């Protein structure tokens, strides 16, 4: 099979597998949607009626096919709690999460590059501190980073409002001062984690003879980095970028909850705690779709290069 067909087949397979995992996890719930609708106190007869109404008495595979057909035709269903269409709920929340994710990636990419370079190839005095920062930064729970940033930038220096109640209906990017702390909370652990992964790849590449040659020829470090090292780490870096991007759809949950922003992560968490299964399934599938699409995109340039040079 040529690579576009193979990549497409792989993407479809991955999405199918992800949708099965997501459906099984949520369908394994001991109390089902009828319990939620009945408020936990419904009589058995009432429960049976609600189950029939929701189609919950049908076999698992039929319900899975219904769900997948619904998602593919653009109708993922309605929330059990509010009764509103899921598409509408997601559209309403997506702005905040996309803004957070894009800003966090924009901050973390240069920080990742700088940290990885400092740890692998920086001046000698900088390598140990950079390595320590990478190890510690990748280990810290996100909530600790959030607390440290609030304590430092908000409470001690008074730079940003600590908890950012975004006025309803206002787009997130209209109040950048509210976004600085959540964006840094997301970006710093990502940068440290990315640097921890890329550090090894960079150390591998810079040990190669052609990099040594370039150094001996007296090329400036920036030229060596861009022309000789960057192309070699492009594949793992794009892969990392794809996984990070998908991780952010669920990963914003902690930052959104701590800083009071109503985004997709917060929607997912609320839906989980209220057992709003259709919403959980849709948001989780959306996150998985972002990862799978990102992975396919990350694979594309490498595949093309491989086929071009047999």
């Amino acid at each position, binding site marked *: 099979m040529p690579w576009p067909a193979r990549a497409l087949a792989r993407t479809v397979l*991955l999405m199918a597998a*992800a949708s099965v*995992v997501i459906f099984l*996890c*949520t369908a*394994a*719930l*001991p109390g089902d949607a009828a319990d939620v609708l009945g408020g936990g106190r419904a009589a058995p007869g009432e429960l049976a009626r609600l189950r029939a109404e929701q189609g919950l008495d049908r076999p698992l595979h039929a319900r899975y096919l219904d769900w997948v057909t619904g998602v593919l035709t653009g109708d993922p269903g309605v929330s059990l709690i509010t009764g509103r269409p899921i598409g509408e709920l997601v559209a309403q929340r997506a702005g905040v999460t996309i803004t957070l994710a894009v800003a966090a990636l924009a901050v973390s990419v240069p920080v990742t590059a700088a940290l990885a370079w400092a*740890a692998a190839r920086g001046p000698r005095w900088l390598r*140990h501190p950079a*390595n*320590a920062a990478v*190890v*510690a930064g*990748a*280990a*810290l*729970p*996100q*909530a*600790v980073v*959030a*607390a*440290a940033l609030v*304590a430092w930038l*908000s*409470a001690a220096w008074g730079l940003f409002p*600590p*908890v950012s109640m975004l006025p309803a209906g206002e787009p997130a990017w209209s109040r950048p001062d509210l976004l600085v702390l959540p964006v840094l909370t997301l970006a710093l652990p990502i940068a440290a984690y990315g640097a921890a*992964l890329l*550090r*090894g*790849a960079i*150390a*591998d*590449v810079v*040990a*190669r*003879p*052609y990099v040594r040659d370039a150094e001996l020829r007296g090329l400036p470090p920036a030229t060596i980095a861009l022309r000789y090292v960057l192309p*070699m*780490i492009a594949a*793992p870096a794009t892969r990392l970028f794809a*996984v990070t991007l*998908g*991780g952010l*759809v*669920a990963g914003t*949950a*902690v930052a959104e*909850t*701590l800083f009071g922003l109503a985004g997709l992560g917060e929607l997912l*968490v609320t839906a*989980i705690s209220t057992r709003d*299964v259709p919403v*959980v399934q849709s948001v*989780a599938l959306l996150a*998985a779709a972002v990862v799978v699409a990102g*992975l396919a995109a990350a694979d594309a340039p490498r595949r093309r290069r491989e086929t071009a*040079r047999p």
Partner: protein
Amino acid sequence: MKRVNGSAGPVPPVRAEQDVVTERRPRAVLVLGAVSGTVLVLALGGEAVAGHDAVAIVAPPWSRPAPGLPLGADALGRDVLARVLAGGRDLTLTSLAAALTASALGVAGGLWVGWSRGRLGRAAAGAADLLLALPLLLLALLAVVALPGPAAVVAGTVLGGTPLTLRVVADATAAARHAGYVEAALSRGERGGAVLLREVLPAHAGLVGADLGQRLVLAVQLAAALNVLGFGPAPPAPDWAAMLRENLQGLGLNAAATIAPAAALAILAGSVAALSHSLATRDGLS
């Protein structure tokens, strides 16, 4: 991380002096091991040395530190020191259980896949790769739908961490398959399983230990995230991560109520990560 294969011909091995990361520092392992051990013991047994009851209301909300209340009071006026001392036990126990489960499964699977190199093994490795495509926090959040919080931490760590362990151990085992000490044991007539347990596994103790540390850090991060999101122990039980959420708004009134649990989590995760890193660098793995 996979090696990057380029077009530059054979790659010379990286020599140790080129890279400070591969310096041998056995003493760092001992020191960091002692620090991590102390932190774990404190996290698990801290409740015993707490002066106050961790759930009793003893002062006005967010009272500043005072004699008898060294870290002040939290959002509801409970003793922060008592809550910090008691609030690490469940989180640490859950994380330890999750990390040990993920690591044990990954090591067993990795030894098997790396040794047998059969079609089944490759299929298992492929399935493990598939799991890596799903974000870890998402897996744990999905698990929380059906399972209680601690079980979800274990499930998330196993789903997200076991594939990584499996891959690392499988690579190391496959590389050791034709090493001299393995060939010698096999030619003595020892069985494959015995060689794996008595020769291959001890030879990779540093690798397995470093990997276990990474799983523990992952589990602590997951447990902290789930507990911050409200899927941890039910209030009023003390928990470091839940304390962060409870007290973040009172940072201007009593900063210690937020900083103390944050520092506890940071020291726990940081010391284990540093120990794991020093184990990996001692064995020249990083």
